[in-house]
């Protein structure tokens, strides 16, 4: 589909976001490399010596692994004033697909997470039960607890700063989203209050300007996620 006439395996297009290098996805990788090298030699003027150009490499339906990506990168380095923005491809490996599927999935678990126990999930987790003090629930995505959170919850384990921790009853020991931490007030302060921290379900999230954990009513979660 992306294969043009012969000897036009590599086409360079200018777009408003910089250059896109489209690569034929039927020929051999070696042919591609040879032509890319020639193009770079010849089209020096395209890349020029002017301000840095952002380049997107589009490999169509060809799967390009990291070692092939590196080969392309080293060829492109020949041309100065180029910065590779991204590799784009219509295909991904089975492994990546599996990981993506996991990241998108919701795992639901019915139990009490007791002291000393940790539940760790890729993607989002829905816990039907309590997290007791000393217990922890963690996810690369969001943590939803239909019960009382008295222990620890960690959302966005691998750096997703837009992740949230939701709980029907929020009385946590500790919450983190990505690498932002929240500690519960000391027990003494809690005693003084004599009431739960919140009288309705809330979610914890990273509040952008201060980069700290804040709590908001769960019914405002849609607004928060729309803003992202």
């Amino acid at each position, binding site marked *: 589909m992306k294969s043009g006439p012969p000897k036009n395996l590599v086409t360079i297009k200018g777009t408003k976001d910089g250059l896109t290098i489209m690569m034929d996805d039927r020929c051999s990788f070696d042919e591609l490399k040879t032509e890319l090298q020639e193009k770079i030699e010849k089209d020096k003027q395209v890349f020029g010596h002017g301000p840095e150009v952002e380049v997107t490499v589009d490999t169509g339906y060809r799967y390009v692994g990291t070692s092939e990506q590196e080969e392309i990168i080293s060829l492109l380095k020949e041309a100065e004033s180029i910065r590779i923005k991204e590799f784009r491809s219509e295909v991904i490996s089975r492994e990546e697909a599996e990981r993506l599927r996991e990241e998108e999935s919701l795992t639901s678990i019915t139990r009490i997470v*007791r002291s*000393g126990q940790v539940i760790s999930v890729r993607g989002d987790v829905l816990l039907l039960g309590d997290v007791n*003090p000393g217990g922890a629930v963690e996810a690369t995505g969001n943590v939803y607890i239909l019960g009382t959170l008295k222990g620890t919850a960690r959302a966005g384990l691998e750096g997703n700063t837009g992740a949230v921790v939701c709980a029907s009853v929020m009385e946590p020991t500790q919450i983190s989203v990505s690498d932002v931490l929240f500690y519960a007030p000391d027990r003494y302060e809690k005693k003084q209050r004599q009431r739960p921290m919140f009288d309705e379900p809330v979610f914890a999230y990273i509040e952008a300007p201060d980069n700290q954990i804040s709590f908001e009513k769960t019914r405002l979660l849609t607004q928060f996620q729309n803003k992202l």
Partner: protein
Amino acid sequence: MGEAIVITSGKGGVGKTTTSANIGTALALQGKHICLIDTDIGLRNLDVVMGLENRIIYDLVDAAEGRCRVQQALIRDKRFDCLHLLPAAQTKDKSALNPEQMKQIVEELKPDYDYIIIDCPAGIEQGYKNAVSGADQAVVVTTPDTSAVRDADRIIGLLEQEQTGSPKLVINRVRSHMSSRGEMLDVDDVVSTLAVDLLGMIVDDEEVIKAGHQGEPIAMNPKSRASIGYRNIARRILGESVPLMSIEEKKGFFSRLKGMLGLKA
């Protein structure tokens, strides 16, 4: 064929040994054949609480290692012919026994008794694993303080992975004036955090300490409130539905608790 019940807690000093001695005694009072096993090797004291320390010749480790038959290591109680104790070794440590040996001993004893009550050491290591290995059921003892409840929760989590299934809870040393002043956790808080069935509550009573000192379990004393608590627990183990004893006079408290536990009044 008897049933083996392990009495455990995670934390030390919350009343496992006291509970083992008194549940055993209260069941013996009902004419049941009971064998108590002390698995706290190196720190034995169930024999002291039962007032039987002078009679020990062989112990659990001797029986496990075949230096004597299991029956030879048993001590008969002073008060009840149907109540026996298999004492722990005092000179060894927890590694002197393994779960396989413990299981075998419990299996050997089961045909001769209605209940085998296993007193577990503190902690979650070898000693705990030994004690739990032979048990069909588990009772978790806690006091109403935060750290004891935390450890009870940990133990319940571990027990849920054993064949003993979901354990039953005993809350010991309950002091009504403290929870109403917010100095201790409320019994309600404890039960709702741990989310297991409540088998009974025992008041904090200095008579219990005296009784332990004299080697006469409090369950023998029909007047003490702690004793009534233990006797009620024994009746519940036997399948009777006994209402929870009123520790606190506050109105509505027990009906609320009972409702929560699905117990009939």
